[in-house]
């Protein structure tokens, strides 16, 4: 086709249709802190109910933000022996343990070439503030292998500025593969029992194959170990959200 100029017109593809699905409601991101889920056992559910009431009460007075393993947090606690009676520690959360009021989380940082890990109780009344400086999920639930990784992966600036994050977006997953120090390590992280995806193993193929000898492929099919928490979580989520609204 020839236009008025006489030159052939460049083909303009038709504009792609933009489908705005107004019917689909944006799913509200539900996060239930893992310490609310009761462990499997023969304890009376009344005990968990009473513990949850205390936890909700504490959360009403003091805001415990949503955080996962891999987030960088700054925690200020009241310390009777410090100068200003408060001490602040910044670190990456490597583990969240415990259930109920005794829930803990471990923060790791490297300060002046010395690795430091501090284990805090979530519901300790001496904690004055927990700030999330950077939201970032990692590939694993337990980052204890950072102890055997090169120190650059555990160093975080103590005066870091909080990185902004929009509420409705998904928490980003950092697919970082961490380089390790030479063996020996504190635990044999290459074994399938730890199921670690976040390490870049530089070991020879023979060692990796030998580590697979300790794999237990029947474990994922073991029905007695199954603990389906979906219904329990739904009930507890309703209870907790109602408790926090009041």
């Amino acid at each position, binding site marked *: 086709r020839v236009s008025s100029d006489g030159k052939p017109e460049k083909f303009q593809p038709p504009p792609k249709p933009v489908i705005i699905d107004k019917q689909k409601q944006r799913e509200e991101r539900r996060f239930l802190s893992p310490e609310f889920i009761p462990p499997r056992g*023969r304890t009376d559910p009344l005990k968990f109910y*009473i513990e949850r009431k*205390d936890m909700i*009460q504490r959360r009403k*007075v003091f805001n415990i933000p949503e955080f996962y393993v891999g987030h960088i947090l700054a925690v200020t606690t009241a*310390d009777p022996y410090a100068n200003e009676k408060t001490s602040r520690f910044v670190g990456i959360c490597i583990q969240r343990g415990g259930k109920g009021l005794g829930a803990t989380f471990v923060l790791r940082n490297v300060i002046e070439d010395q690795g430091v890990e501090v284990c805090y109780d979530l*519901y300790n009344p001496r*904690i004055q503030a927990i700030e999330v400086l950077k939201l970032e999920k990692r590939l694993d639930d337990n980052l204890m292998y950072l102890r055997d990784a090169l120190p650059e992966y555990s160093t975080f600036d103590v005066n870091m500025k909080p990185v902004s994050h929009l509420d409705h977006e998904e928490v980003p997953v950092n697919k970082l593969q961490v380089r390790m120090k030479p063996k020996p390590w504190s635990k044999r992280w290459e074994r399938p029992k730890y199921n670690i995806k976040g390490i870049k193993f530089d070991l020879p193929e023979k060692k990796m194959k030998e580590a697979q000898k300790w794999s237990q492929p029947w474990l994922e099919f073991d029905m007695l170990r199954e603990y389906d928490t979906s219904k329990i979580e739904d009930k507890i989520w309703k209870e907790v959200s109602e408790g926090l609204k009041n």
Partner: protein
Amino acid sequence: MMPIWTKSGKKHAVTLLKVQDCHVLRYISKEASGGKTSKLLVGGKNASPFSKSESAMEIFKEAGVPRKQKVTTFNVTDDAIIKPGTPLYAAHFRPGQFVDVTAKTIGKGFQGVMKRWGFKGQPASHGQTKTHRRPGAISTNKAAKVYRGKKMPGKMGNIYRTSFGLKVWRINTKHDIIYVNGSVPGHTNCLVKVRDSQLPTYKDCNKNPPFPTYFADGDEKLPEDLYDEEIFQFTDPSVTYA
């Protein structure tokens, strides 16, 4: 068991004990019991009446109360006698009191001498022939006999033991739960006897306890939770050191 924090920021571990359907069953006078004080029989958790004989059920029928799983005796002074059939609640105890808790320990079955009595055993190597966890010598030559009560392997656990002087931190009157300091003998959900402490250090600890007991239909209306003075309550803001 659960953690509890004081206002100074210290953490203590606490055991929760539930007072489930406790009733007074019978009053035994001083002369009838043959002891120094009169006794009160108290029954615990409700259970099915069908697995006990008629004669055993008589006590419960007299008191007008369903069959109880655990029946204990309490030595009681004459001014603290309660009518059989009255229910007992957790509010009988108050925060700040000291308490002794008795229960049957977890049964471990037939156990060897190392686990049962803490013997050291023998080395694992250096020529030991088939002897690593044995008691070794059981008596001397001169004695020419084994003394009675010699520590030897046997059934371990499943006996009554008491932990003394446990502080009561908190009472929940709605669900009848007593928060008692430290650990208590017995497995989870086992039946337990809670008694005012007999230790001489805590003789004068009880200031104005509910005497003879807390009556639910009385005039006193208690709040849902009773706390000790030193406990950090979660309604308060975080602890600071001035």
